[in-house]
């Protein structure tokens, strides 16, 4: 039995320990804000926070989240919009939006580690997150806007 916290709620999981966190979140808990894009850590659509750090839920087995604190996009805007979300809205970032949960989770982690990122640091921090609609220019602008706020 694995014990973990998801968005502040205590959970226990007794299924296959190899099941990736992504499918536990989506199919078992019904937290569908975290998306499936590639399944092999190539696109970032499934990005969540494990103890505050961005991880790819699609390659994070349940065995590795025992005792962990998991945060998904659903919890980020719970008490009013997070500054990153507000910046995303201000810059009209999303097109289809499917990648944006992952982009936002990644951007929050980036800004925590690097509060005032340069262009190169944004490239480095965000290069794991694909947006097939091509919203990168607005993502960059939104990160710079959010960087003016404490995150």
């Amino acid at each position, binding site marked *: 039995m694995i014990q973990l916290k998801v968005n502040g709620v205590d959970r226990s999981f007794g299924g296959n320990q190899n099941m990736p966190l992504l*499918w536990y979140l989506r199919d078992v808990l019904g937290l569908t804000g975290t998306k499936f894009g590639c399944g092999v850590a*190539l696109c970032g659509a499934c990005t969540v926070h494990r103890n505050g750090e961005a991880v790819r839920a699609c390659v994070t087995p349940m065995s590795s989240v025992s005792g962990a604190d998991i945060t998904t996009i659903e919890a980020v805007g719970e008490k009013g919009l997070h500054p990153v979300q507000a910046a995303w809205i201000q810059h009209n970032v*999303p097109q289809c939006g499917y990648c944006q949960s992952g982009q936002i989770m990644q951007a929050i982690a980036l800004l925590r580690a690097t509060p005032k990122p340069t262009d190169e640091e944004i490239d480095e921090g965000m290069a794991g997150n694909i947006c097939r609609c091509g919203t*990168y220019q607005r993502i960059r602008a939104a990160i710079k806007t959010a960087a003016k706020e404490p995150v």
Partner: protein
Amino acid sequence: MSAIYNLSRRGFLKGIVGSGAFVLGAHYVPRILWADETVLNRTEADLATLHPNVFVGIDSDGTVHIVAHRSEMGTVIRTSLPMVVADELDADWKRVKVEQAIGDSRYGDQNTDGSHSIRSFYDTMRVAGATARFMLIQAAAQQWGVSPADCKTDLHAVVHPASKRRLGYGELASAASKLPVPKKEDLQFKHKDAWRYIGKGMDSLDLTDLCTGKAVYGMDAKLDGMVYASIEHPPVFGGKVKSYDEKAPLQVAGVQKTVPIDPFKPPCAFQPLGGIAVIADNTWSAFQGRKKLNIAWENGPNETYNSAAYEKELHETARQPCKVIRSEGDVDSTFAKGEPVFEGDYYVPLLAHASMEPMVALAEFKDGKVRAWAPTQNPQAAQAIISQELGIPKENVICHVTLLGGGFGRKSKPDYVAEAAVLSKKLAKPVKVVWSREDDIKFDYYNAVAAMYLKASLDAKGKPTAWLQRSVFPPIPSIYDVNAVYGDPGHLAQGWTDMPYDIPNLRIENGPAKAHVRIGWLRSVANIYHAFAVQTFTDELAHRAGRDPAEYLLDVIGPPRTIDLKSTGYPNYGASFETYPWETGRLRRVTELVIEKSGWGKRKLGKGHGLGIAAHRSFLTYVAAVVEVEVTDDGDVKIPRVEMVVDAGLVVNPEITRAQFEGAAVFGTSVARSGEITAKDGAIVQSNFNDYPVARIDEAPYQTNVHIIDSDAPPAGVGEPGVPPFIPALCNAIFAATGKRIRQLPLTRTNLARAG
């Protein structure tokens, strides 16, 4: 009064969103809760107090319901079209509720493809809004005993300025509903100056949901008691299962059973490909179970398909005389005159869509009826294929449209929705079919692989005196007719039949090519390879003549004129020539403006930098692009800046339109940098974003500036037209930076590293 009315009208409701109910975002919930099947396909608009047409309804509390009948995949169409209705209705946007339509022919075309939602439905939306506004004014005038001509509307109310009387739309809805619906000829449309929303634009009504994880895509659809299915498809197109291990997958925890799906009967169209489905409690178990299927396949005739050999064949065909689709003057005798002649072969491989959300659909077959939820660009096609596969009437297929995590044309083909319905019937429970990324890449309807051959004879200034172009590609009609080998007029029209240059002798040809995979349309479709060939060849001719490529491009476009293509059967994207003539003056204008905006010939560029230009009309929109590249010593391509000038006629939602062109530049970057699908022994080689990479933030253009021409011309397309000129402009820039000419895509085929 209104409360009572509303109560009775909504008496059909089961009540709250409870067990067994489908869980979707707020915009989708109500209709799904109708207990009475006969009203299953009724919308809030249909049931409103005043509902003069299928797109609009007004409740007596003043709520305006507008139906969005096109699919939302990021173009913000489900905001932009309702915005047009709201403007003509003079409605307060805050009191508008937009409801997504199911697939239903009463809305007309719903295939959200071909960049034509605004173009085809702008008038319909204006009429929908103006009709309701007309009736509200009539109702108020009757009540006040004044002439309707003395009344007007003022944001959600009718006013009689002379007496300063005012009635809200909600108060008038009931009286207005008793009046006859006016004819279109009697309507008065707002003057442009009075527009509140059109041309000013509006954020997506889904914007906050998209940033908070609340937006509901097909991938997020859920029904109580549903099972998950993952399908092993035949690796070679047209293949069949010989044998498989029925039992082994059941060893995987969570796997319930395996279910065969019949192979399609040619032609494939939108039928399921066939294969073996693994049914499980969750997606992951279904994926795992597939690994144990141990299927032996009978591949069929397409197993001899190899991309390298096929590429050679296409080029050989393009070097031979082909079917003539447009001819002016006399190309052959001009070529024979002995002027210098220049020629080139161009190539663009198969391309996959790779929308961020893989194919996915949920369907429930019950009591002879199907309810499906799918991220589909074409719910009516989903109805049709499900009805065909299950042998039930089309009316018994309800197809709900969720948000789409990207579409790019792939989700116009509902094979995956049909799979869910077929499995639900076999299993007698709701089934959600989930494709992996590998399934998505390997079982796409690919943008056609194409070879083009161009030849021109040149005068003393290097300007073409005769021009020949041949294009060879497996055509999209091959999915409907196994013998189809020639391009259909609709796709030949895309940047080929309509070559716009001012050249007296011109011949345009198309050669045959047999398809060995499913061919389909992808954002910009045939314009991708056609614009690449024509705009690259043009740049080559300019350099050959020692002329400035931008000046040369304007020279070959020639003076402003209307091109007459009627004799060629040119379909003009389904629009009339009268309304949407092919005007070279507009192509000139965007070209001239992009030259100015990019500082062409005026800016000093850094080492390894270069500028490239291209111009193209597609989907009735004229676009010119200038791309700046930096090619590093080790051959990496960076794109610091892109300028695009767009003449799309009237633009309803400018900021959203700019975003579409920014996205097109990124999409074009993906095609150019790394877009290549290949087949080996009939099976697709690529599988995921490792071997079918798409542009990432550090590879995409750093800054794309989009300039929209202010125009009163009728609206044209904006989703696709940015892609075709971007790609050759990028490749021409690479030539300017490195002296290396890109005649085949993707760029990985050319070593761009500086020698030595």
